């Protein structure tokens, strides 16, 4: 029996689609209900639907063997996991964004900046580790773009997909921190103790990802 933790929402749907293409029966997971645990005794798969930020935790502690989660969450949570496949969907970028004036060195000219973000750990790691500067991090829970607009912070760190929300609010991408996409993560013990089930699954999913990538390239 394998337990798979999915990030509720679009990512879960795409993950289920890919699993089905790889030959796994996911009827249980597609059931429209409010159930949080979806189990199919015939296939030996158990799905749990969790908040994205919690998926790495379930997998690190072994409550789930496998998880599908965005790289942004993995970077933020910093859990000890095996990160075995880049699924290629859910693509976006982790960026520093702010008013256009901050482009071309403008950002570096502001001392003691305040940074609004949902991702305090990524923000700290980037400013301290890469840019070698101290910043004041203001943890926000949504609509982060508001912060620089009303003077709560000088800039923000957030994921950017099309950039439309930023542009419509007079903001722009200043620096890119990392490319983000959905990843398959595996618990370190499950990888050993359940390798008979997990290794073939990884192989089949990889094949599907390759086929998809080739289709997109051509």
């Amino acid at each position, binding site marked *: 029996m394998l337990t798979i933790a999915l990030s509720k929402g679009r990512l879960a749907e795409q993950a289920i689609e890919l699993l089905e293409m790889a030959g796994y029966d996911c009827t249980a997971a597609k059931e429209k209900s409010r159930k949080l645990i979806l189990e199919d005794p015939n296939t030996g798969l158990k799905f749990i639907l969790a908040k994205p930020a919690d998926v790495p*935790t379930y*997998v*690190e*502690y*072994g*409550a789930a063997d496998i998880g599908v989660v965005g790289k942004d969450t993995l970077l933020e949570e910093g859990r000890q*996991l*095996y*990160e*075995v*496949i*880049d699924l290629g969907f859910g693509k976006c970028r982790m960026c520093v964004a702010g008013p256009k004036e901050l482009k071309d060195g403008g950002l570096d000219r502001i001392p003691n900046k305040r940074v609004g973000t949902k991702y305090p750990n990524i923000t700290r790691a980037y400013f301290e580790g890469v840019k070698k500067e101290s910043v004041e991090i203001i943890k926000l829970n949504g609509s982060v773009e508001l912060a620089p607009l009303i003077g709560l912070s000088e800039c923000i760190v957030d994921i950017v997909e099309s950039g439309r929300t930023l542009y419509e609010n007079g903001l722009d991408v200043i620096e890119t921190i990392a490319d983000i996409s959905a990843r398959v993560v*595996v*618990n*370190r*013990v*499950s*990888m*050993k*103790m359940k*390798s*008979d089930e*997990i*290794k073939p699954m990884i192989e089949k999913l990889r094949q599907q990802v390759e086929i998809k990538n080739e289709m997109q390239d051509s």
Partner: protein
Amino acid sequence: MGNKFYTPDGFCDTLPEVCAFKKDAENKLRNLYIHHGYTEIETPGYEYCDIYVDPGFVKEEDLYKLTDSKGRLLCARYDGTIPAARYAATLAKDKLPLRISYIENMYRYNQAGGGKQSEFTQAGVELMGVSGSDSDAEIIAMAIRSALEVGIGDLQVSIGQVGLFEGAVKQMGLDEATQSKIRDAIMAKDSVTIDRVARDLSLSDDDRKTLLMFSESTGSFEITDEIRARFTDAKALDAIRNLEEIKDALDDYGFGKYVSIDPGLLGAQDYYTGMIFKGYTYEVGFPIIGGGRYDKTVGAFGRDMECVGFSLGLSLAITALMRQGLELEIPGADAVVGYDKGSKDARKTAITMAEQMRCGGSVVILDTSSETEEELNAFADENNIDTVLWFDGGES
């Protein structure tokens, strides 16, 4: 002020049934270590933070800290190996090799998000002042025996060798930044990143495949001629020989079935210097055993010494056993002895009788509260005690 009813975050009481099992396990382990010539030491519950932080073994924020009367920073015991290394370098006068064991509580403040205990018991042994594959195998065998002794039967041990990776990056001439990037990716079994880095650097197909071998390996891994042919660096070839010799020796111990080779095991940078291993079982998401060769650690305390050791997470192992279906028994008594509280003779007889029965190996409670035989019987019923003895003015 309002916290007097609670235990601190990350700490808990060990209840009688768990405690009984745990102490029994500790006794078995202690016995095992004694019979293999490992002598137990107790190191201080608090150390100067410097022993962990100064040589860079542990991050400052992972330590439980307090200050001494002079304002110097102390920390609660974080592990068994570093204090043992300090002991070996500064106090141990014995002839080498030293065989040391410990069973102690460790304290770690690193559990963001909770769910893991900050206080837990580890049992471990260190074999100090000796190198070679046979010593490596002896320690892995001790680790396997420890797990079996505690009752962990479903055990898998993965063995790696840091020399393989070090040799590989050396023969490819990779710079430090790249090494560290690949190292992180190997530890995360992140083949995507390794593949990308190798292609960005225009490494040869062979080199790329060699790097991917580190991240792709799970489960059983055999050292074949094909793998041997990938390596030219002397350190890597030594590492391969070391792994083969260890595997061979473990077959002689009869433990071959528990072990497999995983070249992707690397451990914290610059800590392990040779063989490294981890032990896994079902139902807990973390390895229950960790160990390896650490030839540079004791040197940080001023005396160079080649060492190999392991620790078993006893608390974690017990959690695993309970989730695997182990039924813990609440320790009970075999007999209860009561007496007429008005009679001095009855009391004396009861005490003597209870003592005699204990000498015979029974667990006997001397009841000091029941006023009548009926009360004593009720007490025995409630507590599932089979044998009840009542002394009434000298008569049973």
